[in-house]
């Protein structure tokens, strides 16, 4: 039984934490929060690229470090803890993973080395309105060479260089790659619940696009990408949840009411214990997802769903009860509680909402039992 990260992976995590506590301090996060024009922190993005993190799980032949997905998981946790205001998840969990599992050699060669260097910023343009994007409700169309339609919201859409676009094609949907510096692309920033991450509408007018994977297989491929991203997001969510629990615990020890530390009251104790239990459930499910992801195990779809559901639960609970533990202070702009409350919501809807994943989980459970 060796259900844990290796010492090397733990060392990487420690280094990442140290690096981010300096390079992605809350002051850095707040420069993006407070500046509507700023889509991300470009300095931090460059520093992360210089560390080689963007290519951590990209094979060496395509310019990456050639480490595994487990290394990505430990980095994800620390990125989540630091609330790093960069297009990391969009680029690494979604875009790079999609190219890795479905790209042609030519596509990999064209995109991955630049991505590892920080020159390519990816994003996912699937949503067009409320609800899960499906063949039955999409309006964006791919005609074999170009794509036309509007996508909203696109996380990191206003700083991305490339988009993964889900579009109607033939009898179904296809996933296509669009170079956003090309013709027929208009990006417009929009406001969201989490201003520490940028969002945009992307409007395509016969924008040149190339197919990723099989034609007509877009939704299925997107869900395969989501499975991988779900595990990585789960670690990011765990990092955020742990940060909330740490903040709340620290506050509960230092804050006095009725001349006692508020952490000595059972109402606060049990609240934090509940947060801890939810976090342990999330962490254990995420570990299993990490194992499945890194070993390309057939358990991945089920493990990813469990990891995602548990992580969404833990982060929502931790972020809202962290505010509650802080009392009035928690409701102020200057205390960081709300940054996690905002981010928790973004991460919970970014790759499909939890209720959709619950249905997916049960369907996958039925398939496993039937097999």
């Amino acid at each position, binding site marked *: 039984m060796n259900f844990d990260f290796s010492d090397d992976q733990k060392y990487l995590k420690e280094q990442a934490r140290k690096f981010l506590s300096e390079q992605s301090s809350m002051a850095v996060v707040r420069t993006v929060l407070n500046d509507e024009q700023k889509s991300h922190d470009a300095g931090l993005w460059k520093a992360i690229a210089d560390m080689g993190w963007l290519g951590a799980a990209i094979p060496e032949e395509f310019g990456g470090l050639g480490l595994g997905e487990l290394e990505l998981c430990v980095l994800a946790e620390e990125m989540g803890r630091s609330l790093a205001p960069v297009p990391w998840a969009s680029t690494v969990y979604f875009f790079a993973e999609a190219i890795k599992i479905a790209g042609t050699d030519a596509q990999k060669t064209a995109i991955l080395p630049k991505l590892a260097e920080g020159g390519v910023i990816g994003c996912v343009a699937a949503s067009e309105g409320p609800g*899960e994007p499906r063949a039955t409700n999409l309006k964006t169309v791919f005609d074999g060479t170009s794509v036309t339609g509007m996508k*909203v919201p696109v996380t990191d859409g206003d700083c991305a260089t490339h988009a993964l676009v889900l579009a109607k094609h033939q009898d179904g949907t296809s996933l296509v790659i669009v170079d956003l510096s090309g013709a027929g692309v208009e990006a417009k920033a*929009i406001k*969201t*619940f989490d201003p520490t991450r940028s969002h945009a509408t992307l409007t395509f007018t016969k924008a040149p696009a190339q197919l990723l994977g099989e034609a007509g297989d877009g939704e299925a491929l997107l869900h395969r990408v989501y499975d991988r991203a779900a595990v990585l997001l789960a670690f990011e969510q765990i990092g955020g949840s742990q940060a909330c629990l740490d903040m709340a615990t620290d506050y509960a020890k230092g804050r006095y009411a009725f001349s006692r530390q508020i952490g000595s009251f059972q109402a606060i104790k049990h609240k934090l214990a509940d947060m801890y239990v939810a976090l342990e459930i999330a962490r254990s499910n995420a570990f299993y997802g990490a194992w499945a992801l890194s070993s390309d195990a057939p358990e991945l779809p089920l493990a990813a769903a469990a990891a995602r559901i548990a992580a969404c639960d833990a982060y929502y609970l931790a972020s809202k009860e962290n505010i509650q533990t802080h*009392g009035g202070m928690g409701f102020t702009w200057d205390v960081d509680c709300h940054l996690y409350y905002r981010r928790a*919501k973004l991460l919970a809807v970014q790759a499909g*909402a939890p209720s959709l994943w619950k249905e997916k989980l049960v369907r996958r459970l039925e398939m496993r039992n039937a097999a």
Partner: protein
Amino acid sequence: MDFNDTPEEAAFRQRAQAFLAAQVEPRAGQTESLQKRLSDKEYMLAAKAYQKAKAENGFAGITWPKEQGGLGLAPIFSVIFGQEEGKFDAPAGPFTIGLGMCVPTVIAFATDAQKERHVGPALRGEEIWCQLFSEPSAGSDVAGLKTKAVRDGDDWVINGQKVWTSGAHYSDWGIVLVRTNADKAKHKGLSMFFIDMKSPGIEVRPIHQMSGGSNFNEVYFTDVRVPNSQMLGGEGNGWSVALVTLMNERLAVGGSPGPDYKEIFEWAKTMPGQDGGTLAEDQSFRQKVADWFVRAEGYKLAKFRTMTALSKGQTPGPESSIGKIITANQLQDITHNAMESMDHFGIITDAAYAPSEGVFQQSHMWAAGLRIAGGTDEILKNIIAERILGLPGDVRVDKDVAFKDLPSGR
């Protein structure tokens, strides 16, 4: 069992309706609230004019004694006026705390001359009052406050900081709870003053909330002088005076804080569900709607029971504490569900795209604050357990110890 007014109540309600219809705009049909359409200054003028009209038409100080210019009526009439006023976009907000909590405290403890000077102007909307109790290190535990007043001749000199003060920036007067003796036990070294908010040394700064806006203030006191004659209830009796003020808080609270089962269910009919139909057709969503309905209606009906007690001349007890626990948590839950059920789209707050102009997202922020403001969930549950169920209080370590010797942390 019925839901009818008594003849006396019905007559009053009719008079109130007539007054309101003549005086202010109905809420329904307006796309933007009065407060949004007017500048801050214009809104304040409108509010003062409205309060003046209430006073002139016999709708101000409904439960106050007649000798103070009130109507001397039972609390039920206040509730009835509130119900009718709630149907209109009346600019009543700036007076809620002053007339609901501060001036009743003045009436209870001030001298006749002081009442003569202050009650009338407040009632006629000429002067606005605010309440200065909470401090950065004294929230749930108000009596732990540190702002101190030191006697200097006929005056007291106040230094310290208050927080979460609504309307401090437009208030003329305030009631302020301070520590006049740190050698006495926590609850015994406090005194209450009323104070001119324009006094030198008072600085009001807005608090930037996590929701983006600024509905509250910090108030800094630097060598602020207040005459000893403006002490209410005597030196060292501040806590007893504050309890009178806070007792009135419960009655001042009310109203729907944001979207409830009705709004989310109506909205769900326009949203895609999981199974190809609308969200309103999803079985799991429907089960939640039923739960929300039951709690929302239950709370509404519980208020009817309170009104019945008021109507019979009884004083409502701490039962009303359940209200905010239910509404704040339900608001957080409903808005959370609404956002998640939109999938990725739920994160948008941009009014150009967000359904219902982002009301679910805004309210999700507010809900987090609502669980804290005016008594946290945890404090309210203590109140239910101790005052309604009669359970023993928690162990107190802050009794019989000089305040200056108590630990206080951050």
